[in-house]
């Protein structure tokens, strides 16, 4: 299978959107990751597309991660990224700024892209335990960011 489904393309796009918070940069990276993915699948059609997707995203991330400015989101709502209504991205901005690279990528792949832990661990080349640990740490940090956003409300109480 060399042709990727639209859900795979969406997963690649979301991976880079939430990891960079830069719509243009995310688009460029996603385009490159997609072509890497297609090449890998053409070379070996028996590869698991999801594992290949994770590996391609990680490869592309490692290539461009030094060019990403964390904590300075650059996206507009009319650029094609349809965020759910009433969703506040400020907590995610905060998390994206504070989280380590491993926590950020683990949380995105596991909780946003909903790829199974086994596939992620093979794609990233880490054990399942390590992955879950990273996700747990990431969730805690995200929870702290969410809690920080609600602190004025709790003061009122």
């Amino acid at each position, binding site marked *: 299978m060399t042709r990727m489904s*639209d859900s795979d*393309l*969406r997963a*690649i*796009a*979301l991976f880079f*959107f*939430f990891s960079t918070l830069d719509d*243009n940069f995310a*688009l*460029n990276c*996603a*385009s490159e990751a*997609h*072509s890497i993915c297609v090449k890998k699948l053409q070379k070996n059609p028996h590869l698991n597309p999801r594992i290949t997707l994770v590996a391609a995203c990680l490869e592309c991330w490692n290539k461009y991660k030094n060019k990403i400015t964390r904590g300075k989101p650059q996206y507009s709502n009319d650029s*094609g*990224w*349809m*965020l*759910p209504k009433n*969703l506040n991205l400020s*907590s*995610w901005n905060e998390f994206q700024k504070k989280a380590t690279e491993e926590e950020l990528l683990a*949380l995105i792949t596991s*909780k*946003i*892209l*909903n790829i199974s832990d086994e596939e992620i661990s093979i794609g990233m080349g880490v054990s399942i335990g390590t992955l*879950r640990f990273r*996700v*747990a740490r990431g*969730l*805690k940090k*995200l*929870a*702290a960011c*969410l*809690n920080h956003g609600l602190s004025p409300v709790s003061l009122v109480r």
Partner: protein
Amino acid sequence: MKMSSEFIFSKKGKRKLTPFLGKELLYDYISNRLDDERKRAVDSLLKDSKEIQDEVLMLKRAMSYTEELAQTGISEKIIDEIKVPKTYIQGFFQKIRWSEWPSGLKLGIEVLTVASCILLVIILIPWNKVIKFPIVQTSQLVLSEVKKDISKSSSNEIVIAEKNATPEELVFQDETEKTAESVNNQKTVQAQAPVKTDSKSVNEASKNNTKPQPESIKTQGFLYRGSIRVSNLDVTSEKFVKKIEEFGGRKAGEVPLGWKKGESTYFHFTIPEAKYESLKSFLIEYGKIQLNKEKHDRVMPDGIIRIIINVYEDKDK
């Protein structure tokens, strides 16, 4: 190992799961990945610790937040852009966020680019060759005119006259005087030597005229310049004018032959090259003269030379 209702973490028993360890197990606890034994231990910890309860709530909130993020949709446009591999230029424009630039700035840059391209083209075009190109065409047209005259001429004598004519007889023909001159040539030839010709000779003559002659193209012109001291300047100058005209000389430049220039007279003229020696020997009779051949930009036709002579009054005599 026998399991009791109370979880035993040591051989001595009754040691509960610490909050530190319990916190690390919370994610797996929420995800239902713990075995029964550990799940019960975390449950018992949750009952006692408010801090752990808060942490579980926070984790659940974070997870529901990620579920919301996962609902993010992507337009077809983005999907298409990801599918189609970008060219370098497209990537460059996207990188510099060209679409987000102010329209005035974009227009300015576009105008500047177009102007630069035009300027570059203007600089790179070899204008010298372009300008010279029509001149070459003109000279070709002159050649065709000659051809036309030959083809038009009905009498054989005209062809022969042109063929036999010396350079002196042909060289001074201005465009306006050509016709008259050619008629004179006809008469001269007819009077001097009425040659019988047949159609073959006419054809040969026409062939000779039409064939391109392998002439060496002159690129450097020359000018003869000199001065002479004579007695009785006015009278001698008049004689010089007459003699030069006799030799077929014509004034060159703007001033007439023998133009008075202060205390001297000035002769700037063209003359057939064949008459050069005769002119020189004529001038020597009046005084010492030396004509120097100098390089000059103006290239004269074959058989024609240009001379400038300054004549001074010889006060010693």
